[in-house]
Structure formats: C-alpha cells, structure tokens
C-alpha cells in the first residue's frame, strides 16, 4: 500500500514537473525535493532499490556531503531523484543495518532533515550556467572546460567500470544523460516499467506449455464455431432448402419500370410530350407555386361553370319544395289518384320493356318472400294474439274481417303446400282425419284396393324399350318380375274378395259378437284393454319365433298366472272365425314386412290401413287373428288335453268356462318382482354362459385350428391291407402330436388364456397388416402424431393447385449445373418463420469473382511467362 501511494505521489509530482519543465526546471526540482523529503519518512522502514556498496558509490561519484559523515542510507536528494524506485526487488538488509555484533556505530538520528535553504551542488543551477556562458564568452574556450572537474571524472570512471565490472544498473546508464532533451520522458518510461511487479517464474516444460496452448486454441475455436449453430439449426429445420443461382429478375418496383419507360406509339408520345413538358417538369421540381400558375383558368370557363352549378342547385331546390308540398296534401283521393297513375305508368312500363318486367317480377317475389318471412298470415303476430285473447265477438267488423282474411291466406298457403306434397302423405292425413270408420268404410277401402289391383293388372307394360332396358336379359328380368308381381296381385285380389264376402257375413254375426262382448262384465275393463293390446302384439308376428319370445316375455312379466289363463279362455273366441280372413291379414303383414315391387307395396298400405281400422273397431275381429299354436308352446300351466278341448269347443261353451274360471280364482294382489327376478325371468330360456363358452371355443378353434386327425390314405396299400395292418404311419402320428402340442402352446400364449370371461381376438388380418407400420417411425413420438401426419392426402386430385406444390416440395431443391458453395455466415433473424422454405443463393458475387479470376489469371500467366523466360 505504502509503495503504491508513494508511486502515485511521485507520478503526480513528475507530471507537474513535466508541465513546468521548460521554463522553471529549478522550481520543479524544488517541488520534487519537498515531496521526496516527505516520502523518505515512509521509506525508512521499507526501501526498494539497489543497495550499492559505499565504495562503488564513491567510485561512480555519487557523493553527498553527508555520505561519509552520516549513515549510508541517507541519500542526497539528487541521487534519489535520479534513482527513484528503479528497482523494486528487495535485497538483503545491508550489513550496516543488521547491527550484527555491533560492528557499526549506532546512528541516533535517522531522520535527518535537510535545511530549507539546502541546494544541491551537482545540479547545474541557472546561475552557474550563466556563469559558464560568461566564461565561455570571455575566454572563447569550449564549455566543457569550465565545467566541474569532478563530474567529468565520474563519467569517465563509470564508463570504465562498465567494462570491467559488468554490473551496471539502468540508473548508471541514465545518469550521464541527465539534463539532455528527452531525458524526463525516458526516465518516466523506466519508472513505469519498474513499477510493475516483475515476478518472473521459471518457464514451464515444453510439453505442459503446448498442452495449455492447445487447450486455449481448442476452447477458442470451438467457441468460434458455435456461432454457426443458429444458422445450421435454421437450415436443418427448414422444410425446404433452395440452392439457387442469383438470377437478375430485372425491375422490382413500378417506379423502376416507369423510370425507363420510352413512349413508342403515337398516343404515348403525345402523352409524354404533355407530361414531360419541360415547363411542367421544372415546376414539379421547384415547388408547387409554379404549378398553380400553370393551372390557370380563363374567366369565361369559371363563369360558365358557376352558371351551370347555380342552375342545378335551383332545380334541386324546386324539386324538393314540390315534393314537400305534395307530401303535405292530406286529401286521400288525391293520393289515390296519384297512386293509380303511378301504377298505370308502371304497368305500361312493364309492357313496354323487358327490363321493367323483370324488375316487377323481382318486386313481387320480394313481397312474397317478405310475407313468408314475417308469417303475417298466421295468427302468431302480437296483434292477432291480442285480438284472439280478447275474443273475436268483441271486435268490430273491420278487425274481424282482417283476421278472417289472414286465416284465409293461411289456409290457401297450407293447401298449396299440401298439394306440393306427395299423395301418400295426404292419404295418411286423410286417414288420421276420419277416425270414425265402420265396416262400410272397410268394405269401401277393400273395394278401392281391388280396383287398384285390377288396374295394375290391366295395365300394359309401357316401359320404354330403349337404352339399357332394351337389352334382352334386362327385359327378361323385367318380365319375370312383372309376372311375380301380377301373381301376387291376383292372390291379393282373391283375398280381397274373400274378405269382402266375410265382411258381409260379419254384418250378420255382429249381433252375436256383441253378445260375446258382454264378457266384459266379468273382468275389469282396463284388463280387457290390456289384453287386447297384448294380443295385438302377439298377432303382429305370429309366425316368427322372435315375436313368440316377445309374447312370452310379456305374458310372464306383465301378468300373473290367472291372467294367462284368462287369455287362454279368450283365445277360443278367435278360433271360430274362418282361417281365410286370418290368411288375409297374414298376407298383409308379410307384404308390409318385405315390400316387393311397387304395386304390391301400395296394396300393402291399403291393406294395413284397413287392418288397423278393424282392430280399433272391435275386439272380436282382432281376436280372430289369434293363432292357437303359438300360444300353446308358451303357456306352461294348462295341460295339452285342456287346450285341445278348448280349441275344439265352440264360443258358447267357452264363455261358460270363462265364467267358471273367474268365479273359482279370484284375482290375487299384484306383487312387483325384484329386478334380478325380472332379469332371470327374461333370460330364462337362454343360457348365456354356455353360449359364451361356446363362442370362445369357436374363436379359439378359428384362430388356432385343431390339427386334422391322421387318417388312412385312400388307395395306398389298401388292397394289400398293409395299411390296415400297420395302421397309420408313425411319422403321421408324430406330426399330429407335434401339431397338437403346438396348438396347446399357442393357446396358452394367448392373451385371454387366463381370462375366463373375455375373448381377445388375436386374428391378424394379413391384408390390413400390409397397411400398418410395424413400429413407430423415428421422429414421431406417438401413434396419434404419426397418423395425423399422414392423414391428409397430398395429391393434385385432392388439393388445389396452390397448395399442392407446397405439400410436395422436396427437402432440398438444387439445379443441376449450379455450383453450391459452402455455407456463408449470416445472422439468423429470430423472428422469421421457421416453416418457410429457405433460399441459399449461390454465386452472389459471381460477376465480381469472375473479374477477379480474370485478373488473377492474367497475373498468373504473366508470372509464368516470366519464369519461363
């Protein structure tokens, strides 16, 4: 710390000295001396610098008046100023100072203070110089002669010592230069040099040194290379890299194109002469004022324009006034007349030209659309609702008329809509409408159906015999179809006839049936209804086993045993009707189920309609449809004999039994069965578990088929009975065993081998396998991503032309013949779009490089010539 302080001070002093060096060297020195005196105090303890022996000192003549008399470390100012802190390394403590063995006299006062008026002898003062000059002027001898003899001697001696001793300090060399120009500079530099710590270490071994060098070199070069990283990353991630030649595309802006435009045609030339009028150009270039001057108009022009404008304005004003006036007129007749006139004009216009007609049509259309949009004609508007709420009777004539008009409109529109719809739906509507139908209607309907069928039968095939239909096989097919349809129609016709006849019979039988309906007295009416419902259900598909199940289920879950018996008792009612009617319905149902050609389908609709009506009409008719056999299988309770008996007995006896049954078994209370019970009952017939096991076995057998059993080969050794004697050859048996084992292994390996209730299919579809990647391709991280990546097609058939190019662009696009140069460094813009294709332009400065090459070539050639010469 102390040292640095000193240095700083010294530097300060030095700098100040330098500033004033030219004029007042002496003053500066005085300053320095002062400073140094202060320093000395600190330096006493720790003083750097060479420690010259006293003898050497004497010899080189650095002497001070106190040198001999007093202690050795008291330098005179001059000397110290010169030497300064030249050396900073520490020598050993001088012998004198060690106080070893008290060989030297102790010095009491180390801190010797120079007197204030002290002046160095050696320093050539200004006075001395003047004195010398004076001497020189007087004697005419050279200056050196008058200088102090002692000093001269010192110089010589020092030079001599140089050679002999070889131990000289920089100080010694500096001394003689003292006072010469540039001395202070030199001294300063040396001072600076020596201020730094000169810790010189022994050099490392070469191996170590080189290793360090390499380390540094590698570090630097790898750091330098890292700058390429963003660029390389960008290029790698770019969807497409273009290696393009730098093509001059010419002008890029409109301005550039316009700047070189040359007028060619006459018109262009004319325009150019106007626009490129030097006067105009000049005006443009200079300022706007001149341009305004050029824009001057004549007085007449302005007047004319003003006049025109005024006229227009006045016309406009008058028109406005007029229209206002007309608007103010309250007379209705006037307006009516006006309107009529306008209409007339419009009509005449329409007649006059097509455009107007079109316009008119558009208007009408618009009106209609508006009406449709607003639903004005429905009673859904606020106004209409309010009126209806208050009641139409309260309203006055006009309102009522308006409402009725609206309703009319609505009716009209709905009628229109209905007429647009197809006939079948309208039929349905009409069916819905007339709920009350009787047997007459039924017969009517049947008649209708009959008529239709007859029509169909009579109809000749008017199929066009052209095109595909003209082909012989098509015709044949059509004929066949037609025949089948005809056959069916004929059957239907017969059935209609029968049913018609039956209906007539029923007219009479109805009386008796009404008697039977008296049965309702015994049972509850609700139950009766349910029953009929139930029977309907069973009827609908009496031939199908499925429906039988359905029926059974219904019976078992919905009703109790008594109910069932009741049903049974009702059943016989149906038996007394003739099977023909039954067949009619059956056929109808069948037709409904599988609609054949169109004609039969229509018939079916008719038939089904009629059937529905009959069903709703009377229970008896419905009951007639009952099929006993279906019931028999499903009802567990009654014994077959009973059933047979029931079936054979007539309706009257049935009734009796019904009565009897009901009287014997009063209806017990209905209990809700538990859910499990229900399920169990529902699936009572099918054994699910067994079914599943069977299914699983099937799957296993399908996927790992059981090996075929070895059989005797037909014909081989048969007639000699060799085969019979020896049995199946052993290798076959072995093979069979092997195959069996293999199969068992395979079964054990299955995923569902230990899962009893699961079937995991391991069937591989070989055709589909082709279309599946075996493992997830490398850059993709999940199956979904991969699938997503190939989801959209990329072909030109599936994508518009604009995007096809981008979709199909390869990773690298290069042109054959374009030399691709190695990468050139450029800063990567962090904001640029990474999904955009990147262009790397080659031969950016191709022209310049060519030129360079040329020049170098010429140089080279000249060089070679020279060498040859």
């Amino acid at each position: 710390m102390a040292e640095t302080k000193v240095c700083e001070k010294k530097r300060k002093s030095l700098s100040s000295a330098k500033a004033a060096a030219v004029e007042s060297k002496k003053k500066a020195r005085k300053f320095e001396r002062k400073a140094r005196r202060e320093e000395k105090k600190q330096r006493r303890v720790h003083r750097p610098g060479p420690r010259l022996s006293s003898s050497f000192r004497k010899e080189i003549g650095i002497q001070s008046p106190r040198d001999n008399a007093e202690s050795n470390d008291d330098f005179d100012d001059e000397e110290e100023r010169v030497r300064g802190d030249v050396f900073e390394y520490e020598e050993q403590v001088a012998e004198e100072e060690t106080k070893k063995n008290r060989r030297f006299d102790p010095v009491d006062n180390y801190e010797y203070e120079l007197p204030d008026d002290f002046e160095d002898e050696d320093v050539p003062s200004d006075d001395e110089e003047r004195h010398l000059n004076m001497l020189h002027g007087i004697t005419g001898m050279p200056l050196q002669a008058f200088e102090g003899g002692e000093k001269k001697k010192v110089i010589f001696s020092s030079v001599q010592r140089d050679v002999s001793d070889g131990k000289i300090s920089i100080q010694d060399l500096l001394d003689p230069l003292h006072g010469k120009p540039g001395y202070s500079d030199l001294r300063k530099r040396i001072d600076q040099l020596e201020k730094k710590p000169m810790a010189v270490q022994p050099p490392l071994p070469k191996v170590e040194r080189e290793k360090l060098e390499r380390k540094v070199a590698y570090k630097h070069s790898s750091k330098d290379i890292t700058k390429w990283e963003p660029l390389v990353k960008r290029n790698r991630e770019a969807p497409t890299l273009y290696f393009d030649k730098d093509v001059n595309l010419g002008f890029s802006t409109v301005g550039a194109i316009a700047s070189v435009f040359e007028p060619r045609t006459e018109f262009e030339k004319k325009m150019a002469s106007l626009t490129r009028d030097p006067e105009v150009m000049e005006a443009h270039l200079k300022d706007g004022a001149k341009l305004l001057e050029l824009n001057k108009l004549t007085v007449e022009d302005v007047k004319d324009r003003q006049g025109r404008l005024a006229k227009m304005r006045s016309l406009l004003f008058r028109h406005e006034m007029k229209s206002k006036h007309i608007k103010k007129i309250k007379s209705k007749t006037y307006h009516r007349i006006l309107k009529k006139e306008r209409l007339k004009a419009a009509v005449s216009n329409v007649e006059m030209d097509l455009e107007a007609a079109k316009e008119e049509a558009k208007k009408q259309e618009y009106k209609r659309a508006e009406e449709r949009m607003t639903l004005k004609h429905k009673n859904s508007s606020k106004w209409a609702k309010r009126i209806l709420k208050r009641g139409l009777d309260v309203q006055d004539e006009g309102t009522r008329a308006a409402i009725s008009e609206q309703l009319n409109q609505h009716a009209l529109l709905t009628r229109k809509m209905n007429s647009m719809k197809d006939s079948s739906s309208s039929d349905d509507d009409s069916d819905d409408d007339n709920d009350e139908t009787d047997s007459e209607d039924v017969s009517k309907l049947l008649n209708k159906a009959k008529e239709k069928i007859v029509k169909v039968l009579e109809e000749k095939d008017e199929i066009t015999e052209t095109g595909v239909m003209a082909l012989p096989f098509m015709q044949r097919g059509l004929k066949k179809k037609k025949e089948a349809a005809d056959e069916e129609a004929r059957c239907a016709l017969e059935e209609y006839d029968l049913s018609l006849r039956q209906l007539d019979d029923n007219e009479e039988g109805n009386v008796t049936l009404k008697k039977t309906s008296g049965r309702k007295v015994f049972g509850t009416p609700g139950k009766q209804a349910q029953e009929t419902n139930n029977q309907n259900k069973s009827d609908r598909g009496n031939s199908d086993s499925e429906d039988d199940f359905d029926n059974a289920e219904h019976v078992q879950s919905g009703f109790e045993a008594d109910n069932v018996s009741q049903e049974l008792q009702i059943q016989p009612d149906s038996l007394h009707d003739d099977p023909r009617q039954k067949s009619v319905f059956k056929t109808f149902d069948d037709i409904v189920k599988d609609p054949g050609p169109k004609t039969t389908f229509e018939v079916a609709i008719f038939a089904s309609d009629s059937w529905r009506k009959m069903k709703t009409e009377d229970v008896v008719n419905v009951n007639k449809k009952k099929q006993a056999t279906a019931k028999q299988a499903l009802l567990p309770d009654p014994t077959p004999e009973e059933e047979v008996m029931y079936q054979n007995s007539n309706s009257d006896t049935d009734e009796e039994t019904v009565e009897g049954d009901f009287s014997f078994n009063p209806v017990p209370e209905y209990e809700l069965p538990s859910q499990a019970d229900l399920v169990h009952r529902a699936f009572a017939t099918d054994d699910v578990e067994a079914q599943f096991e069977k299914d699983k076995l099937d799957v296993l057998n399908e996927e790992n088929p059981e090996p075929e059993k070895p059989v005797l080969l037909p014909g081989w050794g048969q007639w000699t009975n060799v085969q019979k004697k020896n049995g199946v050859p052993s290798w076959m048996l072995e093979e069979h065993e092997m195959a069996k084992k293999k199969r068992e292994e395979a079964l054990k390996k299955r995923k569902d081998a230990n899962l009893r209730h699961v079937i995991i299919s391991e069937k591989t579809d070989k055709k589909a396998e082709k279309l599946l990647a075996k493992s997830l391709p490398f850059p993709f991280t999940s199956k979904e991503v991969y699938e997503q990546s190939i989801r959209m097609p990329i072909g030109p058939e599936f994508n518009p032309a604009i995007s096809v190019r981008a979709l199909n662009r390869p990773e690298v696009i290069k042109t054959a013949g374009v030399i691709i140069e190695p990468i050139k460094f450029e800063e990567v813009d962090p904001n640029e779009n990474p999904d955009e294709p990147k262009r790397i332009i080659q031969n950016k400065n191709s022209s310049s490089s060519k030129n360079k090459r040329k020049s170098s070539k010429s140089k080279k050639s000249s060089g070679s010539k020279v060498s040859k010469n």
Partner: protein
Amino acid sequence: MKVKVISRSTDDFTRERSQDLHKVFRNYDPNLRTQEKAIEYTRALNAAKLEKIFARPLIGAMDGHIDAISCMAKNPNHLKGIFSGSMDGDIRLWDMATRRTTCRFNGHQGPVRGLTVSTDGNVLVSCGNDCSVKLWKVPSTFESSDTVEDDEPLANYVWKYAFRAVDHQWESNIFATGGAQVDIWDHNRSNPVNIFEWGTATIVSLRFNPGEPNVLATSASDRSITLYDLRMSSPARKVIMKTKTNAICWNPMEPMNFTAANEDCNCYSYDARKLDEAKCVHQDHVSAVMDIDYSPTGREFVTGSYDRTVRIFRYNGGHSREIYHTKRMQRVFCVKYSCDGTYVISGSDDTNLRLWKANASEQLGVLLPRERKKQEYLDAVKNRYKHLPDVKRIVRHRHLPKPIYKAAGLRRTMVEAERRKDERRRAHSAPGSTSVQPFRKRRIIQEIE
C-alpha cells in the same frame, strides 16, 4: 316452365392454342373422394417400383491411367473438370461431360498422394511420395479436342518428407500438406509458413473446414484425429480411436461437423466441439472405408470402400441410402461428390474413374414443369409411406455382389456374437461393476488435450 340447364362460359373451356392444356375444374370436397389414402398408398408403391426400374446409376467410366488412382480433386469453380492422380505419378484433368482427358500434368516421380485446387480454380496443387509439392496452372478452356501436356509446374517445392495429403484453404492462397507433420504453405513461398507437430505419427488425410476456413482436421496413422486452428497457430485437440481413420471430411453446410471414414468399416460423424462421442455412426460397409466426400448440400456424403463399393449415406443416417458397384470396379480409393451435388465420381484400383448419378433413378436433363411436378409428387408420396412394410421393402432392396452379401452376413453374426457375449458377461458380473457404453463411444479410446 323453367328448365335448369348447366351453363358454362365458353371462355373457360376453350383453349387459345392447340398445345394448351384443358383446364380441369375440380371439387375438392373430401366426401367425394373417400379412397384417397388407398390411392396414394398404391401410388407410393408404384413409385417405389418405378424407382427400382429406372435405377441406372452408372453413367460411364473414364479410362486412361495406367496405375491405380490414388487421389482426386474437384475444381470448385468449374463443374466439368476433375483431377485425378495415380500411383505412377500421372496427374490428369478430365472433362466429365465428354469423359476424356483434357490435360496431363507430368512431373511427379513417385505416386501422387494428394491433389487439391484453389478456390478460384486456377492453381492445382499436387504432392506425392517424391517429397515434392508442385503447383500447376489449370488450363482455363476445354476447346481443343486433344490432350494438353503440361510438363512445367508453376512452382516445385521440395521438402523433407513424403507427402500423404494436401488440401487447399477456402478462398485464400494457403494450402496445407500432411506427412510426417502438417505444413501450411503459401502459393508464393518456397518454405512452409507454419508447421504443426504433435506426436510422431504420419498424417494420412487432411481437410480444411470450408465453412470455417481456419480450422483444419487431420487423421494420422496412430489412429488419431486432430484438429488445428490456424489463427492460434496451434493444434487444438486430438481424439484417438481404436482403428485408423483413412479419410476425413467436413460438412460444408455445418461447419462444426465432420465425418471420419474409419478402417473398421464404419464412418463416424463428430461434432468438433464434443469429441468424446460420435454424433452418428454410419455403418454398412464390409471393409475399410477409404475415402469420403460430402455433398455440397451437406445432406449426404459418399464413401468409397476397400470392399469395392461406393455407398451414399444421409448425414444423419445410420445406414446407407444407396450402394453402387460394378463387376469391374476394384478397391475404391477415392470418391468425390460433384460441385452441384448431382454426380458422384469414384476412382479405384482398376485405373478407372467412374461417374455415377447421385440419385440412381433421377432423370437427367431438362424436365418439363409437369414432369418435375409429377416426380416431386411421387417422391413425396413415397416418402410419406416409406414406413409401411411393402414400400420399405422395395425401396431398401438392393442386389449385392455375392462376396459383399456374404461378408455382410458374417459381419452381422460377428457383431451379434459380440453383443451376446457382452450381455452374458454383464449378466454374470456384479451389478454396477460393468457399464454399458453406447455404440457411439465404444470406438473412442481417448480425447487428448
């Protein structure tokens, strides 16, 4: 009654010229074409098959040398020219378009071991076993039909050792030679301007980094790969592998990466900043890889091997994309990718240079825009479905010469055996006592600072 008819403007459906194409209007509603995936898959399959059909990679052989070709150099400024040096000291300049010698440079006494051309394409540098480096002037024109003989090199510098490799720095006057040591030369000085010595091994190959021209990589006979930095005028790092590296090449588009062609049939791609492991190991050759050269696009490189094949790898692909072989091609000593990335040139023991297409089935010459579009589409489709088994099988399938096929099988069994042994050893040693080294590190012994 209004009858709706299709009305189209005739302008849209008439052609101005008879050559014009009919404009097709399409409805791109995906519901109309539900089979697009199936269609494209079939197209990919067909494209893969067509590619196989049209694969005709060999364009021609350049015959003329009377000894094995030891080295080649491409002219960075002239696409057609390629230089080749042979073991008898003959250096030739070939015109690839006409496939004939346009110039011969006579002067070397022994085998020529290294050739390189300055970036401006005017000076050819050759070096050989006769301890001399020769600078030649490259003839600028190819007009004359007969071969020019050049007996007078621009300069001839004789040095202390036999040279093995030479390479030119990008866009400067400096080139480097390798032999007993690495010397940096200036065109105009008879003595090297700089000398690098690290170890005593002979330099086998040497390449400047084209992107970062002051970085240099060499491989030496002591199985090492060494990096140098000219700015620091010092070697930088050395990595020692288990086998010798025969050739080295920097990726011209990725200045940090280089690939080393190794004696152990593999190529190793390194990042110059992380030499303790290879970035990628490219394997497929069945014998030592002799030479390697990167495509100027930096996406592919070509290797020539002692197993008489030339292979093309992707820069990040573990296996080769393509293999080229002919019945008469012997050991391949040098390969080059052409400066436009379209051709591959191989020089082999049978004294011939062979010119190949870089893409075996590519159609050369001018393509009409429609043809190009079609090709691009087929490539894209093929690329999309390349993972599906059928397409993959067809694309990958190559007919190999029997010895190579057998050698590959043998190699596979050997590798497998080694792997199995390693596995067993690991299974029978105490857990944690053995470490599994990744394949990328396995062949690296040490990285020396």
